[in-house]
């Protein structure tokens, strides 16, 4: 159902916080919508999301979890001392540094000198807004002109990240459904590991349950399978 349909049919029991749809209790809410500003064109759609959030149903994801996946949060985690706050108790300084070393450099455009730094290093950067899926980022030589048009208020929504430099010479064939033939090209692959987490009052339970490889032509900046930039791939362990 869409947010608009739910606005008409979803109810929340004030005492039990049970979410109901046509009188049927909902145990789990899985969001395939709600990740883009155009899903919230009116206050009503925000209110509907908030109604689902207040219910006792399991939310996939809850609002805090959705925000935690945001680029802004990644950028804040990369700031000095922030990782220590969350993992400092159970991990050594060496372990934290090792983890931090696996990240690319990130900064906020609205921080002191953030814009100037992004202009200087534009060719090695990507600018990212708080969005899911492909098609929203600004890359390399497009960055200076984009920064000219970005208002001071809008800067807060964007972060700059150093581009990952992939290994050279990896060739493969990209095949499009319904298309004719294939394209042989140098490719870049991205491995995603997914799993589930359940957040209880006292404990978190989590498990890795699968993986997904997306591959794109080396010259394409963007990724994303649904947006048509990437293709699904598989791994061969050598």
């Amino acid at each position: 159902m869409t947010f608009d349909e739910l606005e008409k049919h979803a109810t929340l029991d004030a005492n039990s916080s049970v979410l109901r749809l046509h009188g049927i209790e909902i145990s789990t809410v899985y969001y395939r919508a709600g990740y883009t500003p155009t899903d919230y064109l009116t206050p009503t759609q925000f209110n509907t999301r908030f109604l689902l959030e207040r219910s006792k149903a399991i939310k996939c994801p809850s609002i805090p979890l959705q925000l935690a996946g945001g680029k802004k949060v990644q950028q804040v985690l990369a700031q000095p001392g922030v990782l220590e706050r969350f993992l400092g108790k159970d991990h050594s300084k060496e372990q934290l540094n090792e983890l931090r070393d696996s990240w690319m450099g990130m900064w906020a455009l609205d921080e002191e000198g953030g814009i100037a730094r992004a202009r200087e290093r534009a060719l090695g950067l990507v600018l990212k807004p708080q969005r899911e899926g492909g098609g929203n980022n600004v890359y390399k030589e497009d960055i200076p002109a984009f920064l000219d048009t970005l208002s001071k208020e809008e800067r807060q929504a964007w972060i700059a990240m150093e581009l990952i430099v992939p290994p050279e010479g990896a060739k493969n064939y990209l095949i499009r459904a319904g298309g004719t033939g294939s394209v042989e090209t140098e490719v870049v692959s991205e491995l995603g590991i997914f799993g589930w987490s359940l957040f209880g009052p006292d404990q978190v339970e989590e498990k890795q349950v699968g993986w997904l490889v997306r591959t794109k032509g080396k010259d394409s900046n963007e990724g994303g399978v649904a947006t048509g930039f990437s293709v699904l791939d598989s791994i061969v362990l050598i």
Partner: protein
Amino acid sequence: MRFLSQSPTFLHLNLKSSAQILFVVQARERNVFDQRWLEYELLEQYMSLLSERVKSLILSAGIRYMYFA
């Protein structure tokens, strides 16, 4: 889901067998890569538990990408 229902936390949630899972989608949703596997798994595991009323509601409410083999 099978793997989730084995979780100790999940078992303590006092689940009611009548409760349903809601998929919130965009109007004219066209992204199938994320939810299709979940739908197939759910239908395989739990379709037999759905009442006729729920089946007809799902159909009449226009939930897309629900298939009944």
